[in-house]
C-alpha cells in the first residue's frame, strides 16, 4: 500500500517536470513595435522587441526588417540566449505609416497567441517606435516598456483617454456601427507624451483627436469617472476667462430621433445628451462665485463652451467618416437587420444631423466660500 501511495505521489508531483519554464532562462518580451520606413519594400516592415532584463532596470532591444511576425521572431530567437516568451507582453506600438495601411493582421496573430493577455495596450507611435524603445534614459521608469505601461494605465484610469487594449480594439473592430480608437504617444526630449487619440476606419489609422481635445472626446466617447477638464471659456476674447472642473464625472446617452427612410436618402437625426458634474477648483474671470445666480451663469458658460467643442469634434469625426462614438450601434439597433446591412453607413453617418446637448452641474466650489 505504501509503495502504491509513494508511486502515486511521485507521479502527480513529477508531472510538472516535463514542461519546464525557468524564469532565468526566459526572455520576457515587454513591448513589440511594428513600423514601416519610407523606401522599404511594400511587403516588409521593421519589427522591434524590447525584453526586460532580470534586474528590471535595463532592456534588450532587437530590431529587424522582416516580412512577417514569425519571420522576425525566428530572427530574434537566433540572437537571444534566452527563450523568448510573450506572456508578459504589455503593449504593441504601431508606427504611423504602417497604421495607415491597417493593423489588424498584426493584432490578429497576437490575439491567437494564448500567452498574450487581452489587456495588452495598442498604441500608435508618432515618432519612430524603434527609437522610443531603444532609449533607456527616461527618468520616469526603468525601461521604456514599463514607462509606457504605467503612463497609459494612469491616464486611462482617469478617463482622459480611452483604455485602448487588445480587447477593446478587437471588440470595436468586430462590431458593426463603431470604429476602434487607440492612444497616440510621441517622444520628447525627456519623456514620452500622450499626443491625442488615434481614429480608425476599420483597422486603418485615418486621423487624430488633438491632445487638447482629448477630454471632450472622452465625454463623447465614454462615461468618465474621475477626469479633469480645463476650459478657456471665451476663446474669442482676450480677457481669458478660464475654469477648471476637477473630479469630473460624465454620463452620455445617445438617442436616434429619426432613422426612417434612410435607404431613400432621408437624413439621420441623432441626439447626444452628456451630463457633466465636477468640482470647480479654479476660475479666473469676472463672475462672483458667492452669488447663486452667477454660479448658474458660470454653469451655463461652461455648458456652452463644452457643447461648442463637442459639436465641432463630432463634425470632424463625420468628415473623416469614422464613428468611434458608436452612434452606428444605436442606429443599427433602431433598424431592421436587412435595412442596416443594405445601408451605406459611412455615407449616412457623414451626412447625419448629430446634435450634442450638454448639461453641466458644479458639485462644489472647493473649500472656500468664494
Amino acid at each position, binding site marked *: 500500500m505504501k509503495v502504491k501511495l509513494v508511486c*502515486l505521489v511521485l*507521479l*502527480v508531483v513529477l*508531472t*510538472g517536470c*516535463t*514542461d519546464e519554464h525557468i524564469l532565468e532562462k526566459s526572455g520576457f518580451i515587454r513591448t513589440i513595435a511594428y513600423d514601416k520606413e519610407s523606401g522599404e519594400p511594400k511587403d516588409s516592415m521593421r519589427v522591434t522587441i524590447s525584453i526586460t532584463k532580470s534586474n528590471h532596470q535595463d532592456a534588450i532591444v532587437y530590431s529587424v526588417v522582416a516580412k512577417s511576425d514569425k519571420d522576425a521572431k525566428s530572427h530574434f530567437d537566433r540572437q537571444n540566449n534566452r527563450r523568448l516568451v510573450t*506572456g508578459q507582453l504589455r503593449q504593441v506600438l504601431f508606427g504611423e505609416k504602417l497604421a495607415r495601411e491597417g493593423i489588424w493582421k498584426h493584432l490578429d496573430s497576437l490575439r491567437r497567441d*494564448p500567452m498574450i*493577455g*487581452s*489587456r495588452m495596450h495598442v498604441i500608435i507611435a508618432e515618432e519612430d517606435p524603434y527609437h522610443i524603445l531603444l532609449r533607456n534614459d527616461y527618468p520616469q521608469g526603468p525601461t521604456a516598456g514599463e514607462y509606457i505601461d504605467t503612463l497609459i494605465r494612469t491616464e486611462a484610469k482617469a478617463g482622459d483617454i480611452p483604455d485602448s487594449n487588445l*480587447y*477593446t480594439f*478587437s*471588440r*470595436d473592430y*468586430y*462590431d*458593426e456601427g*463603431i470604429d476602434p480608437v487607440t492612444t497616440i504617444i510621441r517622444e520628447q526630449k525627456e519623456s514620452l507624451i500622450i499626443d491625442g487619440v488615434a481614429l480608425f476606419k476599420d483597422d486603418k489609422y485615418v486621423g487624430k483627436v488633438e491632445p487638447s481635445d482629448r477630454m471632450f472626446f472622452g465625454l463623447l466617447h465614454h462615461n468618465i469617472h474621475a477626469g479633469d477638464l480645463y476650459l478657456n471659456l471665451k476663446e474669442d476674447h482676450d480677457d481669458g476667462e478660464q475654469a477648471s472642473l476637477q473630479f469630473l464625472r460624465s454620463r452620455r446617452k445617445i438617442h436616434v430621433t429619426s432613422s426612417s427612410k434612410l435607404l431613400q436618402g432621408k437624413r439621420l437625426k441623432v441626439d447626444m445628451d452628456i451630463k457633466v458634474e465636477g468640482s470647480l477648483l479654479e476660475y479666473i474671470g469676472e463672475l462672483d462665485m458667492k452669488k447663486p445666480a452667477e454660479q448658474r451663469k458660470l454653469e451655463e458658460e461652461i455648458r456652452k463652451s463644452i457643447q461648442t467643442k463637442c459639436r465641432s469634434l463630432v463634425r470632424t469625426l463625420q468628415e473623416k467618416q469614422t464613428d468611434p462614438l*458608436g452612434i452606428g*450601434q*444605436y442606429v*443599427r*439597433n*433602431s433598424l*431592421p*437587420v436587412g435595412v442596416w446591412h443594405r445601408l451605406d453607413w459611412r455615407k449616412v453617418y457623414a451626412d447625419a444631423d448629430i446634435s450634442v446637448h450638454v448639461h453641466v452641474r458644479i458639485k462644489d466650489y472647493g473649500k472656500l466660500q468664494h
Partner: protein
Amino acid sequence: MNKVKEKLNVFHITLLIFMTEMNITMFSLPRLIVENIGTNGWIGYLALSVLATFNIFLYWLVYRMGRGASVFQIMECALPKAVMYPVYWALAVFWIFTASFTGKNFFLIFQMLSFQTTNPMFIFLLFCLMVFALLIKNIYNISKTATVFFFMTIWTVGLTVYQFQDWEIVRFSPHLFQLASQGHSFRNWMEVYTTFMGYELCMFLFPHVTKKSKLFQGVFIGHWVITIAQLIVILTAFGYFSFHQIESLLYPIIDLLDFIEMPFINRIENLVFSMFVFANLIVTVMYCFAALTAIKQTCPKVKPNRLEFVIVTMVFFTGYIPKYLGQSEQLLRKVLYTETYIAFIVPVVLICVLLYLKLKGKVPNNES
C-alpha cells in the same frame, strides 16, 4: 457489521446534477449560441432549458409510473435479458466514449494555456486515476465529492462582476434570433442543447433514493441552478464582447477570465480553468458510473473494483482517439448529439413499456 446503505438526499442530488451538467461545452457556450441561435440567443438558451425541463419531467413520469423501479428492472420485466444485454453493452460502450472524449477535450484545451509540450495522455492518465478512485466508491460518496467540487467552482460565477465596467446594453440587439452564421436548423439548436447533457443520468439514481430523497426536486433545482449560473455568464459575454467578436472566439469564457486583473494577480484564466478539472471529473465519473451500472446489470457477480478498472482502462485508451483539439471537438459534438437523442428516447421507450406492463397487469420488480 452490517453496512447501512446511505441514500442520497435532495441537496446532494441538486449539486450532483449541477456538476454533471457543467460539461466542457460551457466554455464555448456564448459562441455556440451566437453561431446557432443569433442575436439575443440567450432567450433561445432559456427556451432550450425549458425543453430540458420537459425531458426531466419524462424521467419523473418513468419514476412515478415504475414506482421507483430501476430502468433495468422495467425493461427486463417486458423483454427477455438476452435482448436487453446487448443494448446495455452498447450503451455502456457509448458512455465510456462520452466520458473519455469529455475528459480528454478538457486537457487538450488546457494544453493551449499550460503544459503545451507535455504529452496530454500523461496528464489524462493522472485524471483517469482520479476517475478510478471516485468510481470505486458508491454514488453517495461521488455525490459528496460533487458537493465539495461545487463549492470549489461556483464562486467563479462571481468573477463576472469584473466585466461589469465594460458591459454595455447597446451590444445586445432588439432583434430576435438574427444573424446566426450557421443558420437555424434543428441540428444547430441541438448543438446548444448539448450543454445541458448530464441530467439524463438521473435515471441511474432511482435505486439509490427513497421517497424522502425528493429525487426530482433535486434534479429540477440542479438543472435550473446551472441554467441560471450559465445565463449570468452568457449575458455577461453578450454585453462585454461584440456579437461578431464572440463568433471569432473559440472559448469566449476563457477570454472573459483573461481580462480579469487583480492587484496581486492577473491572467487568472490559467488558474480558474484548472479549477474546472473538478467539474470535468464529475462529468467523466458520472458517465463511467452510467456505463458501470449498465455492465453490472449483465454480470452482477464480478469481484469488486474489477469492472471499474476495466471501464477506466477503456476510458484511458479511448482517449488516444482524439489527438488534436479540432478533432476532439468534433468527436465530442458527435457523442453529445447522440446522448441528446438517448436522453429523449430512453424515457419515451420506458413510458411505453410501463404502459404496456400496466395493460398486461405486470408490475416491475422493485428490489434493490
